[in-house]
């Protein structure tokens, strides 16, 4: 029991920053993000016996957060008292939202028109910086399936951007240099 608690606490310390970032990048409000974070870790504690060690733990938590998020959108995750305290801290992440800039709000709009699956694939690459094998683990797919789907998702995003007539005067204006990975 104490061993489980120690293991969970160590995973929590290591992954808290990643999971809060994951949730904040995908939720429209800090309250939603706080709920997703709280529920994701609560699930991990309930299923501590399924929670893998090391790097795999992060991927497992991403996969869990994704399911929590999907349930959240269906209104199945109720507000937990324990996530209320997180709200303020999460709200700090929402101060300078990238889509407050005009060009980006158009792109955001197009991005949101993509299917959940497409968005998640693109985001896991670009936001969480996962490689194909890691994405395969998170989504429970084969590496090859990830490769094919990712290719299609990029194509669809590119096409949707073109259709929406989103133009870029210059890449540098769109993407500040310090954002490059």
């Amino acid at each position, binding site marked *: 029991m104490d061993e489980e608690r120690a293991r969970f606490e160590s995973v929590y310390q290591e992954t808290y920053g990643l999971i809060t970032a994951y949730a904040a990048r995908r939720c429209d409000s800090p309250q939603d993000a706080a709920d997703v974070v709280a529920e994701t870790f609560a699930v991990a504690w309930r299923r501590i016996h399924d929670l893998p060690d090391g790097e795999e733990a992060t991927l497992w938590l991403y996969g869990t957060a994704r399911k929590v998020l999907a349930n959240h959108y*269906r209104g199945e995750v109720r507000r937990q008292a324990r996530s209320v305290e*997180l709200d303020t*801290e999460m709200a700090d992440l929402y101060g300078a939202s990238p*889509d407050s800039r005009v060009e980006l709000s158009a*792109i955001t709009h197009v*991005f949101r028109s993509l299917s959940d699956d497409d968005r998640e694939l693109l*985001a896991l690459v*670009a936001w969480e910086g996962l490689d194909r094998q890691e994405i395969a683990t998170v989504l429970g797919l084969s590496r090859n399936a990830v490769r094919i789907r990712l290719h299609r998702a990029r194509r669809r995003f590119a096409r949707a951007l073109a259709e929406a007539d989103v133009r870029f005067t210059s890449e540098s204006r*769109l993407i500040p240099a310090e954002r490059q990975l």
Partner: protein
Amino acid sequence: MKNTDDIDTITRSLARVEPGRPGGQASDAGARTLLASITATEPGPPAAPPRPYRARRLFLGLAVAATLAVGIVVGQGLLRTGVPPSYAVTKDSDGVVYVKLRDFRDAAGLTRQLQELNVPAVVDYVPPGKMCREPRGTHVEDIPPGLYSVPENIPGEEGRGWQMRIDTRLFKPGQTFVWTIGEQTTTTILMTGPIGPCVLEDRPVQKEVKPDYRLATVKGRSLAGLRVDEKTVGEVLPELRKRGLKVTFLIMEIAPGNPGGFGEGPTRTTPVGDDWVVWEAEESIRERGVIRLLVTDKRYDRNPVYGGPRDNVIKE
């Protein structure tokens, strides 16, 4: 089309929290409070082994045949003989009763135990090939959500019986849980008013017929790796069409409160609405390239096929 790097760069620019940066800090007050509140409870027990899907489907199929979504029938796949006779009935302080059943012969003993814990229940043992003559009473159509859980494997004892949870606070006066238990099938049906005795009669043979369809989305089947559960018809159809598959729709009938399981409504080949919800896909056993989608015209709070998320049942 823009090249891959452009697309990824554009996507990166949309991230609310910059890629590579953490969101919150585990040392923040809110983070510490959350950790403390989560670990203040006991963690979950080791996971139960995944339930065999075959058994579950049989249970669902029989539920349709016998009770059309007002009761629960467990197929023989879950229940094997040759184990020590036992059952266990426990009640927690909230009035929730947990029943574990491993033996099906001592119906009288189980009835007595249930009644001692204020579960209004009648239990009869039904040998293989038999059933109680219907009707024995008036079936309750409006089952309160949460009254009982779908029977599940006992953790660590797969295939040796089942357990279920009954919330005794939700019984209304005059209601009785009518169970028949046996090696072959178990039914639990909520009835109201007087309950007739169980008069055994032969179970019609056609209920044991081989199914026409089987799950299509697991390893080795035609849709392996494709997830259709909880998506809309509009999301699923293009992929199936692209693969050149013929698609039919089984319209599921869901009992009030969606207690888990479903009745088989009509199967149609004409399209249903794009906004209908798909809960699972099956493939025809006899005819290659025919897919049957299990659909409802609206979204339910949980997947009726599995009584919850598919991932809780199918792990691969």
